Structure formats: structure tokens, C-alpha cells
């Protein structure tokens, strides 16, 4: 397997990470056609991919920033200062002793294994999960499942890859999907053959660690007819060695009767712009379910979607967003009904702490000619402080009479009486807060895989501890 080391850009005032300036492959800063060619050369892209990148670059350049509806904070991204590709020879030069104490404490509280701590803190460039990954790869490989990096996918399995790549999310979907299409590297390619039900969730964690975290990841997952897959991405551990702009694209294709569940838990450091496009295409009787947890970052914009293209297709988005002080979680869901008897469900919960801000944007489309389509949308916001903020922008377009839509929204606040009640039972203010918050997300978290729900609970505890000082 080809190892790639993605950019290790650093926020120098956070923890004083220091890396040498020499890289084996470095596209330099800024973006031009030259950069695209450079990346295509390094990655030995086939011609069609090079073309794809160049076209995407043009689209990216021509598209305006979506600031007419999204946060003005996007203007703080200076595209000319970003390194779009850099690989090899990146060896972090820092000792465990230099890792800030609060970072160490976080790792400890989250129960991150020793080896992984060093990797996450940037002490080691590689977390040696190669062995774990190749075991998983071998196990699922026996069932005919392909589980590789996107680069390997497009090289070794072009017949499947090319058929679906960029089809669910066209390059020009938005400015950031165009950017990703131009400079993508890293990410997964998975193909599950007809009827194969992958028993254990596949974890990007192992594969991506083997490659290091990607900044412009590109993931494509195809479940053939009747196949089933659960995929997990990210981890609750805060990532300290990340670049400031993350722009991933994830496309899911569930063919007739297939089921895909895609789980993300991400905890970005507070300097990161996390602008991600995720969409699934569900054919007849197929199901695509996104479980999405967003914690941290400076600004996250992410609206996982499902296009229900075949009869009786189902789409679901369950999401939790936690906006800490100074952070903005702009998340939501898009449900596009494109066949009869399709059903979608959106449950979104957000928590705003301090001056944190959570925005919910929903889009539900049921055109007039369709019959018996259903959507259920629930969005609940919890405000921790009087300075916390939440906004909801549901856009529901339902035409025709044979369809039903249900929409519920609530905003609640952790009340002082509730906290006093819990404190009277011996819990500190922070414990009381985190119990309240955990209670708020509890019914959603219960649907998560065990290890994620436990980690999430601990993470909320940590966040609340910080918030009451």
C-alpha cells in the first residue's frame, strides 16, 4: 500500500507544534493549474482524473463563496496561504514532554491508548495501525469486499470507481466540493458485492491513521444489490496536528435493497474550518443512514443528504452538534424524495455553550407527482448560557396531496433550578451540566455503536467542565 502523509499544517500558537520545513513532496502554498498538475503528477493520476481535477479547479475559481446565506466567517479563509498537497518526509519534531498538559489530560480522560496519544499529539507521524488494517482488509476481502484508499480505488478498480465517482455529488455542487474535486487525496473506496452483509463496522480510523489524516479526503462507498455495510469515521479524540481547512467529499451509493450506515464522530480543534459535503443515493428499497456528530472546529458546514431515487427508498440523518465558545456549527440535512413511497427521517440535536452558535439548515423536497412519501423532521436545540445562540432554517418543499410531513422544533435551556437540584444531590456544577447535556442527547446516542456513545459521553463531560471554569 502506498503511504501518504497529508499536510501537517499547524496553528503555531496552539501548543507550539514545530515541524521542519522540508518535505519530499510539497505543492507549495496557493492554488493554480500548476498545483493541480503537480498533484496529478505525484499521484500518477490517469488522464481522466487529471482532467477531472482541472475542470474542478475552474469550477472552484468561478464559484463565489456562499456568504450570501452562510457565515461571513468563511471570508477568513485565505486560499492563497493553504498548502494543497504535501507528502513524505514530514517528521514531527517534538517530544511528549512538550505536549501541553491539558491535551494530555484530555487523552487520559478519553482513555486513548498510549500509542495513539503520541500520534494524535503529533509526537509520532504515524500511528502503526497497518497491521489492524490489513487484518480487516483480509477478512472482508474474503467476502469480495474492496476496502482501499481512494487512490488505489481509482487505479485498481476503475470500472466500478469511475461509474459512480462524482455522480452523487457533482463537482459544481458547491464551492468546496469543487475544491475537493480539484485537489483530493486520501479517503476510502469501498465496494460491497451483491448480497454481502459486512458483519462488523469498517473503521476509517485504522485505514486513515495508516495514511495520516487527510485534509481533502474523498470517499466513495458502493453497496451492490442487497448488500449491507456500516462505516465509521473519525474519533472523539481531539486532533491537534490538523490543517486549518478541511474539505471532504463523501459519496454513498446504495443499490437496490442495500443498506449503508455511515457514522462520523469528529472533534476538531477550534481553528479548523470543516466544510464537508456528504450525500447518499438510495435506489429501490435501499436505505442510507447518516449518523453525524460534530464537536469543535471554528466553523463546520455540513448537511448530509440522501437522494431517494427508487421506490420505497429510505433516508435518515441523526446528528448531534456541540458548539463551544466561539464556535459555529452550521449543520443539517437534505432529503430529496425522487420516487413514490420514499420515507425520510431527520433528528438533529444541537448544544450551544458560552458564545457558541448552532445553526440547523434543513431541506426536504417532495415534488408534486410523487405519492405516499413521508418525512419526519425533529430539531432540538439546547442553550447552556444566556449568550449561547441557535437558529433554525427549515426549508420544506412538499407538493401534491398524497405526502406527509411532520416537523417539530424545540429550544430549551438548562435551567438554574435543574442545576441546583442536581448540585443538591452532590454533583458539581460541571457534572450537573454534563448530565443535563447527556440527557438531552441520550435518545440519539443510544442508537450509536457502544464505543462511540461512551466516548461521546466522556467528551461532553470534558466540554462542560471547561465551560463552567
Amino acid at each position, binding site marked *: 500500500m502506498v503511504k501518504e502523509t497529508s499536510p501537517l499544517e499547524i496553528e503555531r500558537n496552539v501548543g507550539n507544534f514545530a515541524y521542519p520545513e522540508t518535505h519530499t513532496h510539497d505543492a507549495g502554498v496557493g492554488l493554480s493549474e500548476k498545483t493541480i498538475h503537480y498533484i496529478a503528477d505525484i499521484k500518477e493520476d490517469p488522464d481522466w482524473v487529471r482532467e477531472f481535477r482541472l475542470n474542478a479547479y475552474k469550477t472552484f475559481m468561478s464559484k463565489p463563496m456562499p456568504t450570501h446565506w452562510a457565515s461571513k466567517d468563511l471570508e477568513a479563509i485565505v486560499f492563497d496561504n493553504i498548502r494543497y498537497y504535501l507528502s513524505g518526509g514530514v517528521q514531527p519534531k517534538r517530544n511528549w514532554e512538550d505536549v501541553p498538559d491539558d491535551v494530555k489530560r484530555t487523552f487520559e480522560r478519553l482513555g486513548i491508548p498510549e500509542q495513539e496519544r503520541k500520534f494524535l499529539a503529533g509526537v509520532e507521524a504515524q500511528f502503526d495501525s497497518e497491521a489492524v488494517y490489513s487484518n480487516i482488509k483480509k477478512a472482508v476481502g474474503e467476502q469480495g469486499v474492496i476496502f482501499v484508499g481512494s487512490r488505489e480505488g481509482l487505479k485498481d478498480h476503475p470500472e466500478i470507481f469511475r461509474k459512480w465517482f462524482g455522480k452523487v455529488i457533482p463537482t459544481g455542487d458547491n464551492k468546496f466540493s469543487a475544491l475537493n474535486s480539484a485537489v483530493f487525496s486520501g479517503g476510502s473506496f469501498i465496494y460491497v458485492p451483491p448480497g454481502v452483509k459486512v458483519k462488523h463496522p469498517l473503521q476509517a480510523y485504522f485505514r486513515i491513521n495508516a495514511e495520516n489524516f487527510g485534509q481533502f479526503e474523498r470517499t466513495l462507498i458502493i453497496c451492490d444489490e442487497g448488500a449491507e455495510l456500516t462505516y465509521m469515521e473519525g474519533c472523539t479524540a481531539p486532533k491537534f496536528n490538523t490543517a486549518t481547512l478541511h474539505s471532504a467529499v463523501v459519496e454513498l451509493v446504495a443499490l437496490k435493497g442495500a443498506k449503508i450506515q455511515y457514522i462520523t464522530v469528529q472533534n476538531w480543534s477550534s481553528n479548523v474550518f470543516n466544510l464537508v459535503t456528504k450525500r447518499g443515493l438510495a435506489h429501490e428499497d435501499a436505505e442510507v443512514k447518516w449518523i453525524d456528530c460534530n464537536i469543535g472546529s471554528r466553523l463546520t458546514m455540513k448537511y448530509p443528504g440522501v437522494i431517494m431515487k427508487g421506490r420505497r427508498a429510505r433516508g435518515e440523518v441523526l446528528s448531534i452538534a456541540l458548539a463551544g465558545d466561539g464556535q459555529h456549527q452550521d449543520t443539517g440535512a437534505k432529503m430529496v424524495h425522487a420516487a413514490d413511497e420514499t420515507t425520510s427521517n431527520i433528528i438533529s440535536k444541537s448544544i450551544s455553550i458560552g458564545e457558541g452558535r448552532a445553526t440547523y439548515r434543513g431541506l426536504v423536497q417532495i415534488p408534486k407527482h410523487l405519492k405516499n412519501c413521508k418525512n419526519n423532521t425533529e430539531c432540538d436545540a439546547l442553550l447552556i448560557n444566556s449568550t449561547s445562540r441557535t437558529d433554525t432554517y427549515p426549508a420544506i418543499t412538499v407538493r401534491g396531496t398524497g405526502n406527509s410531513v411532520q416537523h417539530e422544533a424545540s429550544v430549551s435551556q438548562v435551567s438554574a433550578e435543574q442545576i441546583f437540584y442536581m448540585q443538591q444531590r452532590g454533583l*458539581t456544577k460541571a457534572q450537573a451540566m454534563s448530565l443535563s447535556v447527556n440527557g438531552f442527547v441520550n435518545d440519539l446516542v443510544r442508537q450509536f455503536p457502544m464505543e462511540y456513545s461512551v466516548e461521546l459521553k466522556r467528551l461532553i463531560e470534558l466540554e462542560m467542565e471547561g465551560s463552567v471554569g
Partner: protein
Amino acid sequence: MNQLSIEDLRVSIAEQEIIRGLSLTMPKGEVHAIMGPNGSGKSTLAKVIAGHPDYKVISGTIEMDGENIMELEPDERSRKGLFLAFQYPSEIPGVTIANFLRAAVQARLPEGEELEATDYYAKLYEKMDLLEMDRSFTSRSVNEGFSGGEKKRNEILQLAMLQPKYAVLDETDSGLDIDALKVVAHGVNAMRGPDIGILVITHYQRLLDYIIPDHVHVMVQGRIVRSGGKELALELEEKGYERYETADVGEPAMA
């Protein structure tokens, strides 16, 4: 020194003086009752003892076993052995009784010590049986959708689990039907003993038929105006508070 003692307490909220020079001493091992008309400041007193942040203490002290607790956070007071059964318990959506109580019991253990789950559940079920509570309650969210009586019973369950040194029960009897009242009283009586002092706030003599107090205090307009034995409760039931409201109680002072 083994007592909860309140010395010349003055408390205000919203510029209004509610507790106006109140003194009260309750030795460990005793049960005291406070009776008084609506708005006389009984709940205010209970919350101030527990350290509610909204009330302004103008002067006075509250000591537990000789230690001044005025500067302690509500949770510190709780862990030192103070318990308040609320007149209006809060709802905590999404947090089950089992998890909530577990966190509360865990909070009392020394740092680094993990609560043994089997021991915890054994004790929880024992106390629930005592209070004739269905076990399905453990998986319900704290007080959410509970009837008035169920909330009160849940307060006593917490009392029984946390085994405090001093407990203040604020109108635990209100909202209980007669059978529930007996069950709750039985639960409280089971806890009585030399290691706990219990302060019962109530409007009704009826509760005191089941939880027989050692002393009864009459509270009117923020002060204890009379103290006596359990027969005082009967007298109050008969004659009301009127005579105290006119006698030696001055105009409420502005804070």
C-alpha cells in the same frame, strides 16, 4: 456540636427580606417540624440551608456539626451530608433515575474509587421495595412526567439512597394520597436514628401522626415565633396561625 444550627439568619430576594432573624437548632437524632402559613418563608429557609445561589444572605450563620457552611457550594454541602427533599422537584429529561442516583452516590466516594454496580443496584432495589416503588421507575427520566405523588416518593428514594446527616423535607406530604403518605412516612421512619436529624416542613398535622416529631416550630413572616412539643401541631390545626400574625411580629423590613 452534633447539630444543625441556624443563628439569627436574615435573607432577602428581589429586595424583599423573607427570613427576618431566624434561629433554630436541631440536634442529630431528632425530628423537628416547621409549620407556618403560605409565604412565611419555609421553602426559602430550606433552599438557603442547601445553598441556593439566588438568595442573598444578609447576616447570620448556618453550621453543620460545628462547621460554618455558608461559604460552601450546594454540592459541597450535599456531600458533607445535607439533603433537601424539594417542594417542587426539577425534571431532568433524558437522565434516568438509576443513572442520576448512581452519579450522586459515586460523587460521595473518594477520588479514584469506582462504585460497584451490583452493590449499587442491590441497595437501590432494597430502598425501592421499602417505598413500594415499581422497579420500572429506574429507567424513567428523573421526575419527567411523574405525578405529584411520584415525585415526592422519588425524593424520599433519594434520601434513603444518600443517607445524609441532616435532611430537610419540604412539604413532602403535599400531593400524596393517604396510602402513599403512609408508605413515605414508613420510609422516613425507617431512616430515623441517632445518626440523622430530620427537619420536616408541613402544613398538615396529619403527616405528624405518622412521623412523630420531637419538636414543633411555628414560622410566621420569616421568624420562628413559637416552639414546643408535638402537641403544638394539634393546637395549630385547631386555632390556625392568626394569633401569631398579629402578635409581636413587626412590619417586614426592607433589605
